[in-house]
């Protein structure tokens, strides 16, 4: 299912700022002494504490030395000390943290507890103690801050190492009898190196600030040496009279700390959450093999009649939309996810939408449910739901309408129910918010609905948390939630994809019963054509954001006209076919929506495409009654009858 989280970060800015600061810091550290060393030492005790002037930009100190020169000159020592302290914390902390990941369980727990306890202890106090033992001065300060860093790094590397140690390659190494230390060095360390290094870099900033705090208390670097902390401490003694003496070193501490802290994230590398799932252009045709269940031939006989009846009936469409258009911002201009879609759902109808990943079916579902969010953009010429006309730009006005009369069933029940809230209240709140029902009343109703979807012991279940439900039960609960209002339409986005095959059938049957029982229409999204055929009255086939075929499900196998539809049908393996045979695929790649060519989007993969196909984009045209297709050369029933079962695709790939 498409994870429509869109992130476009101005990564560049942070990186440049950080690099700039670090470069300046390095320059100061390496060359500061040479350039400003002499000036910094020049004292003038007759004229102490001069204010800022052109001769002394930050003024002078208690024996007349130029403050700016001293601040710049202190760079090397300040950075050095911070690096040393961070090094102590990192090296020892990481050794402990990683080491315990390869220890036996008892020792590991012990060490973990020790780390958690020491983590809680205030770092500065620890630093103070160490400092007190070693006396005031840089040794004590570095050791103090370094030791105070150890618990944090132990914890951090422990967490990293644990997840690495739990991974399969380590398990494999263990099984092969590889020694503990070797595992640690060769398997775990390289994999945690990068986040660790970046955090280490960030901790240099923390050390810098920590050492300056010790200096503020007079316990850090002592005269005649001076680092920024010491200069700051001296400067703060006169801050009300000569603020520049404190501002100078203070600004340096903040900038240096900032540089190191930013480094951590500026170079963290991409988070995995980038692409708008469907639109990367690398998504491949994904299918699950629906082995034991519905074969295409296995369908209810009266489905077609229902469909015709529904279409022919004079009753107005429950949901009707014209010229639906949805786009997302892409790397180079907007990417159109859904285009020129006209769609109507009749009351009580079960309409299926099929297509591969990236075809736009989920986006369509969200658009119809008015659940899209910025930065997506959408528009339509007309949208009517249950008699009301819905405008594209003011969706919040239809809160009550959609809240009570449209139910949405999400794909992945594992994550669709809020893990922090019990199941009962999650269902009940719809009643409370939209119907003003009392808590007791709505809870009762929720329990009823749970019973309706055949969850045993619904009173007890309602008080449980989602993680205590199995996958099938969660999906039932999700359907129950959709029933809490008085839905006229249920939109189900891949409701069975994440479930066991055996459970799938039950869920579909439940949906059927619900639909029959309440008279609600169902819009079922799926990539699995066999599911759609057995369940729906009518099927829409989507490709590259457009509806390419609209056909009653009964006619699908025998009369599907669009070559893509035919290919989909043939790609479904029959259980009889499996023995010794290879799997069918549709040749070529799914279309890259950022870069659509002119003409029919399927042309590149179509065995029947010609120049006209490649130049002109076909529109959806009626072929016969309830059947339409968007194709210049729709397959006719005669052609289909002559075809061997696997002719639409030109190849079968080797197993």
């Amino acid at each position: 299912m498409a994870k429509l989280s869109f992130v476009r970060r101005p990564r560049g800015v942070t990186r440049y700022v950080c690099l700039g600061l670090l470069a300046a810091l390095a320059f100061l550290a390496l060359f500061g002494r040479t350039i400003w060393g002499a000036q910094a030492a020049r004292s003038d005790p007759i004229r102490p504490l001069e204010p800022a002037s052109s001769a002394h930009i930050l003024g002078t100190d208690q024996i007349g030395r130029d403050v700016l020169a001293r601040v710049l000159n202190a760079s090397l020592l300040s950075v050095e000390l911070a690096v040393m302290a961070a090094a102590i914390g990192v090296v020892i902390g990481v050794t402990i943290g990683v080491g315990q990941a390869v220890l036996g369980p008892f020792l590991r727990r012990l060490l973990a507890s020790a780390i958690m306890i020491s983590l809680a202890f205030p770092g500065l106090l620890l630093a103070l103690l160490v400092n007190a033992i070693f006396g005031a001065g840089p040794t004590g300060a570095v050791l103090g801050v370094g030791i105070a860093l150890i618990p944090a790094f132990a914890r951090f590397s422990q967490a990293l190492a644990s997840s690495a140690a739990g991974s399969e390659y380590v398990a494999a190494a263990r099984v092969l009898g590889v020694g503990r230390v070797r595992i640690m060095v060769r398997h775990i360390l390289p994999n945690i190196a990068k986040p660790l290094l970046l955090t280490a870099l960030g901790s240099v900033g923390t050390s810098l600030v920590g050492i300056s705090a010790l200096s503020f208390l007079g316990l850090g670097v002592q005269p005649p040496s001076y680092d920024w902390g010491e200069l700051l401490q001296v400067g703060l003694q006169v801050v009300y009279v000569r603020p520049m003496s404190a501002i100078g070193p203070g600004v340096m501490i903040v900038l240096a700390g900032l540089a190191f802290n930013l480094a951590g994230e500026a170079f963290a590398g991409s988070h995995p959450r980038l692409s708008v799932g469907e639109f990367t252009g690398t998504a491949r045709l994904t299918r699950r093999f629906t082995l034991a269940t519905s074969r295409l031939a296995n369908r209810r006989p009266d489905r077609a009649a229902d469909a015709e009846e529904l279409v022919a009936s004079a009753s107005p469409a429950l949901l009707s939309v014209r010229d639906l258009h949805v786009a997302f911002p892409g790397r180079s201009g907007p990417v159109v996810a859904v285009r020129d879609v006209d769609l109507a759902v009749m009351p009580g109808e079960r309409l299926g939408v099929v297509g591969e990943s990236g075809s736009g079916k989920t986006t369509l579902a969200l658009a119809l449910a008015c659940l899209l969010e910025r930065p997506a953009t959408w528009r339509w010429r007309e949208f009517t739901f249950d008699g009301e006309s819905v405008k594209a730009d003011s969706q919040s006005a239809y809160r009550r309408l959609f809240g009570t009369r449209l139910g949405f069933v999400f794909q992945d029940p594992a994550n669709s129910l809020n893990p922090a809230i019990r199941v009962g209240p999650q269902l009940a709140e719809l009643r409370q918010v939209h119907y003003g029902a009392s808590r007791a009343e709505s809870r009762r109703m929720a329990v009823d609905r749970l019973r309706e979807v055949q969850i045993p012991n619904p009173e007890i279940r309602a008080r449980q948390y989602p993680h205590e439900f199995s996958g099938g039960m969660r999906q039932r609960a999700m359907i129950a939630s959709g029933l809490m209002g008085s839905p006229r339409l249920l939109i189900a986005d891949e409701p069975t994809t994440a479930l066991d095959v055996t459970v799938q059938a039950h869920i579909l049957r439940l949906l059927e019963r619900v639909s029959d029982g309440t008279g609600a229409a169902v819009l079922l999204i799926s990539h699995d054509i066999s599911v759609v055929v057995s369940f729906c009255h009518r099927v829409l086939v989507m490709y590259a954001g457009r509806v390419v075929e609209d056909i009653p499900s009964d006619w699908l196998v025998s009369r599907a006209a669009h070559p893509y539809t035919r290919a989909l049908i043939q790609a479904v393996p029959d259980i009889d076919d499996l023995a010794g045979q290879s799997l069918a695929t549709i040749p070529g790649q799914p279309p890259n929506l950022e870069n659509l060519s002119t003409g029919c989007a399927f042309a590149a993969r179509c065995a029947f495409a010609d120049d006209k196909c490649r130049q002109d984009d076909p529109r959806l045209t009626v072929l016969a009654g309830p059947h339409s297709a968007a194709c210049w050369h729709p397959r006719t029933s005669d052609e289909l009858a002559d075809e061997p079962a696997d002719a639409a695709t030109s190849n079968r790939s080797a197993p």
Partner: protein
Amino acid sequence: MRPAKVALAAVVAWALLVSAACSSDNGSSGDNSTDFASGGTFTLLAADDPGSLNPFQNIQTPGVSMFKYIYSYLLSIDSSGKLVPELATSWTVDGGTVAFKLKPGVTCSDGSPVTATTIADNFNYAKDPANKAVQIGIIFPDTHFTATPDDAANTLTVKFDTPYGFVLQALSLFPIVCGAGLKDPNTLTAKSSGSGPFVLTKAVTGTEYDFDKRAGYNWGPNGATNDAPGVPNKIVEKIVGNQSTAANLLLSKGANAAQINGPDGVRLTGSSFKSVDSVVGGISMLFNESPGRPTADLAVRKALTMVLDIAQVSATVTQGISKVAGKSLTPAQTACDDSAAVSSIPTGDQAAAESLLTQAGWVAGADGIRAKDGKPLAINASYLTTTAGDAPAMELIATAWKKLGVKVTQQPLDNAGVNTAMFSSGNYDVMPLIELAVPFQSILIGWLSGPNPPNGINTAHISTPAYSDNAKKAIQTPGDAGCALWTAAAKGLYENADIIPMSIMPARYFMQKATFDLWIGRVNPTSIRLLK
């Protein structure tokens, strides 16, 4: 961050001082023309906590200065350095014996009368070795004294087995405990039991101490009473360690008085603020003469002294308050002024110092550092980190010495560190900026002469007969004769460059809507007057 811990006699914390009030004296109790506010609260900011409230266990300046609020004394020293009567109306000194006539009608804060016996019991308590009273060895040279009361005649006779030259000054620092507290002074952890002008009502360590005016008090120094206009009903002393914070509090009218030696004083300008200075003690340079150290060599000590611009060091270490070189080890002393001894301090220019070293065999090597018999002239100089002016002054000193070809290692230490260096490890060559806040020279005898640790406290291994002989005689000689001996003793020290005065330890107090004068560098309680 600790401020100029002036009066908290940091390391060598003999915080008994007598203030030689000097300079800008304004708004003292003699000023009748100002408008006194009646019955308010006087808020004072102190840098350090007083410590133990048991007068027999506390001789640090913050504690001693607080005792003056709560307890009475046989006699006092006023702001001009004169001895004035208090519990004793008059006295006569004859050799080692002092006869006091006592003031009648003095009562303790619990109502009980303060009789001659009460006063004598204080002496007896201090004298008993089981009580380990801290006055012994410091303000009283030993326990060889007796106090004989006569309640009927209201007199008290104190007899020292050997005459004690500073007996009167010592008694001005000996608080008289009375009432229940005298029976067991160890209970005096959070309360007072005395006959002083104020009674302690609240004591929160490190935070705040509150006092209420003692009604009916009229036996103060020189007859001071609590009926005078402007005497506050209540005194609140808050402990504020940070000088900038103290200045902020003054500026925001949260306090009447604070000691601010540093540059924050510059912010306290304007007609609402007045300031008064006083000397709390002296800052001196002490050389460690234990055998094997370069500073055991007289030539080295002299050269190191000669080459310093002591006036400049003084200006830096006092943050500008005093710009002249120190004139005495104990400049706060009022009884005997030994500043005439400074003529014996070794002087000379750079060239003279250099030739002195060369002639003594300290010859500069290729790296510029002098050495003798293969041993380099390496000096370990310790100084306090808690006094603001010390670090820059130390840098000045180090620079001057480096020019001589001396290898200087600056050793910053806190209080505990200095104590350790002096008494345990002996690991220092010179302490150029030692703070000495002592009331009279006799206290220094054990430190500047006599046995070395662990048998004594002559930590610097000084053995200068010109000092020890004169001092031993002086301690038993009261009056001008004794003072002349002290001056001769000081001369002996300076000639031998054992210890050299560098500067004074100043105390600069700022006040608003109040006036007072200073005693041992702290606010003198009976002089406090609130102004409108």
